[in-house]
């Protein structure tokens, strides 16, 4: 690993500065640093016109390994993450076997370390086999080498209120958090898309907003009752935003995420019956999109999380009803954040840094991620060209279920630096991951 001297980067505050990196740490940040600030043989990166953000952190990624390696592996998913500017991803628990034991989460973490493109942080299942019947050994996962702090049955809702209550209480032992996939199962039996005027036209079974909102309402009240924190995955409706806003005003310890696709795409796209737009929770209406964008800017929603969900071609190349739910997201998240927060004029780069790095790291209790760009921090950072326009084509994921293909999005990740190692240089992914110490 060579040391790095980044020159003329624009920090989230707007200030222009140089950043010197030695080993895996930032050693100096300031205007016009001396040429040898990172040692005489440091690689110099000209970051003129580029915005430097703390390395991006995804709280919600499906890496599919073990069990579904035809969709994605920890290696390919890590590469896609690095290409998207991420330095850490939380790997969701719906693998096979499920990440519900210390053994499986340690294996996932180890494979991530071997890949060397991002920190792969396993999420533990809340219940055994994601079955919603009995708690998994949350403590064993928390105390394992993987140090699991985020628990989720994502893909399924912890719908039993007693089980949810117990889980919320139990993870206080180690400061953990339950990330709830809010979906009332009876109200969404056979659901295929947002229930509204488009589903009426298309004759597809509706996924009503109330199925999400009723679970969120219940869970913020449960969290208040037992004094726990709760995290809500992928908010998709305007009503959910209202409930979170109310809960926060009441002092409830709740955090919420929104996906890039729910910030950009609507259920009108389903009229094509192209299953690339099939996702859970489903794409909603333009009114919902506008509410989610406003909530991300005003702080009601804490983070953007990708819900990157790769699927092989055969799972999408079929009639809508037979297709799998899910879409890619790692390589467009930063662009969507820029669109929603910067290009709209709604907020600033500090907010982008918060929603894509600082806040998700805090929710996941990752001490070495999401740190501010100051001397002493771990050298996780992303350099973005905000003036770039790119037509979305290629992705580094093993899968191709990419609803953004052909769209022009603002901004491009030019460099990603993961623990002092350049995983992306001038937009090119490194051939190898960071060597293991």
């Amino acid at each position, binding site marked *: 690993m060579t040391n790095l001297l980044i020159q003329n980067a624009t920090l989230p505050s707007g200030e222009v500065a140089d950043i010197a990196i030695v080993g895996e740490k930032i050693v100096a940040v300031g205007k016009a640093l001396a040429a040898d600030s990172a040692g005489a043989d440091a690689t110099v990166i000209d970051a003129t016109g580029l915005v430097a953000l703390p390395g991006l952190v995804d709280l919600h990624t499906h890496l599919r390994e073990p069990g579904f390696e035809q969709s994605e592996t920890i290696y390919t998913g890590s590469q896609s993450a690095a290409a998207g500017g991420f330095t850490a991803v939380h790997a969701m628990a719906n693998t096979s076997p499920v990440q519900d034991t210390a053994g499986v989460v340690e294996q996932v973490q180890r494979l991530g370390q071997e890949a060397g493109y991002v920190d792969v942080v396993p999420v533990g299942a809340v219940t055994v086999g994601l079955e919603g019947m009995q708690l998994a050994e949350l403590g064993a996962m928390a105390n394992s080498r993987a140090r699991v702090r985020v628990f989720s049955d994502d893909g399924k809702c912890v719908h039993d209120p007693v089980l949810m209550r117990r889980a919320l209480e139990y993870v206080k032992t180690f400061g953990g958090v339950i990330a709830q996939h809010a979906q009332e199962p009876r109200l969404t039996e056979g659901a*295929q898309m947002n*229930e*509204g*005027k*488009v*589903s*009426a*036209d*298309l*004759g*597809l*079974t*509706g996924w*009503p907003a109330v199925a999400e909102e009723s679970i969120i309402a219940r869970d913020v009240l449960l969290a208040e009752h037992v004094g726990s924190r709760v995290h809500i995955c992928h908010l998709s409706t305007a009503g959910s935003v209202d409930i979170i806003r109310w809960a926060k005003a009441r002092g409830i310890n709740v955090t919420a995420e929104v996906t890039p696709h729910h910030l950009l795409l609507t259920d009108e796209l389903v009229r*094509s*019956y*192209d299953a690339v737009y099939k996702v859970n929770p489903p794409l909603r209406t333009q009114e919902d999109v506008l509410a989610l964008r406003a909530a991300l800017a005003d702080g009601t929603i804490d983070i953007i999380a990708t819900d990157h969900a790769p699927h092989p071609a*055969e799972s999408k*190349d*079929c*009639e*809508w*009803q*037979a297709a799998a739910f899910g879409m890619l997201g790692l390589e467009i998240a930063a662009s969507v954040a820029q669109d929603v927060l910067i290009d709209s004029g709604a907020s600033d780069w500090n907010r982008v840094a918060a929603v894509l790095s600082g806040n998700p790291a805090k929710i996941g209790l990752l001490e070495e991620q999401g740190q501010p760009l100051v001397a002493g921090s771990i050298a996780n950072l992303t350099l973005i060209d905000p003036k770039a326009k790119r037509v979305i084509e290629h992705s580094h994921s093993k899968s191709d279920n990419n609803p953004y293909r052909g769209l022009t999005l603002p901004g491009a990740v030019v460099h990603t630096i993961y623990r002092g190692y350049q995983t992306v240089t001038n937009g090119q992914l490194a051939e190898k991951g960071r060597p293991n110490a």
Partner: protein
Amino acid sequence: MTLKHLLSAGDLDRDTAIAILDIAEEMAGVNSRDIKKLPTLRGKTVVNLFFEDSTRTRISFELAEKRLSADVINFAAKGSSVSKGESLKDTAQTLEAMGTDAVVIRHSASGAAQVLAHSGWINGAIINAGDGTHEHPTQALLDAFTMRRRLHGAASHGKGLDGVKVVIVGDILHSRVARSNLLLLNTLGAEVHMVAPPTLFPVNTSNWNASFHYDFDTALTSVKPDAVMMLRVQGERMNASYFPTEREYSRMWGLNGDRLGLLGESTLIMHPGPMNRGLEISSVAADHKNSTVLEQVANGVSIRMAVLYHLLSGERNHQDD
């Protein structure tokens, strides 16, 4: 305009819809002759691809195809990729490899016909013979044809259904017949009313150009319809709390003997079949002189001949020239 596929009743503009109805009049003439056969589609291969059982629709298409002298293949694909049977893609590619000019598809998944038409798996014309709870455009055409014939008789040619008041009653939420009828009746200038218990309407009907009623009797007395179209109640609705009991459904939304008295002298009684006699329609209504149930069946063949003619014969003439 000449269509390549018929996927939705919404594909038809007014002129095209009326042109197809007019061709169907000619076909009805053929169907009343001793020798019910035209050479129009000689040498063309049409596949009836049925992923879902529907003997009535299948034989109606089959008869239409044979009367136009097409080579007909019936392909009953058991299961779909939903049930891990043969996938739509593999089936379509197989048919394409064998060389087919048109595929009539019935499928339990909404949008299956559209996916097939736009997939690039197959090049022939696609005719939607019912996709899930989405659409059934040839049913809407045959219903319009039936109404037009009854209302205008020999003077039907070139006419739409302007000002005709149609009340559609029953499981609107899950009905492909209702969706296709709504679109085509709108196109032809008819006034559409829908009657159902609130559980069987879509939650949001703001995109639909129709009036919505919960009370059947009020709808009949206030609208004074020219036609009442009863929809079949599917067995799987009965145990899913859409309504308390079949008895109560029949009492409130069935076309029973009492309700017949609220109809006008010549109000048409329509049903796409197969009927649940005694549930959504009583025998006295089904067998009434104003009932068009059997005409709808007969007209179905004429309409399907007209659709096949519209989609396939233009191309043939072009090649022959």
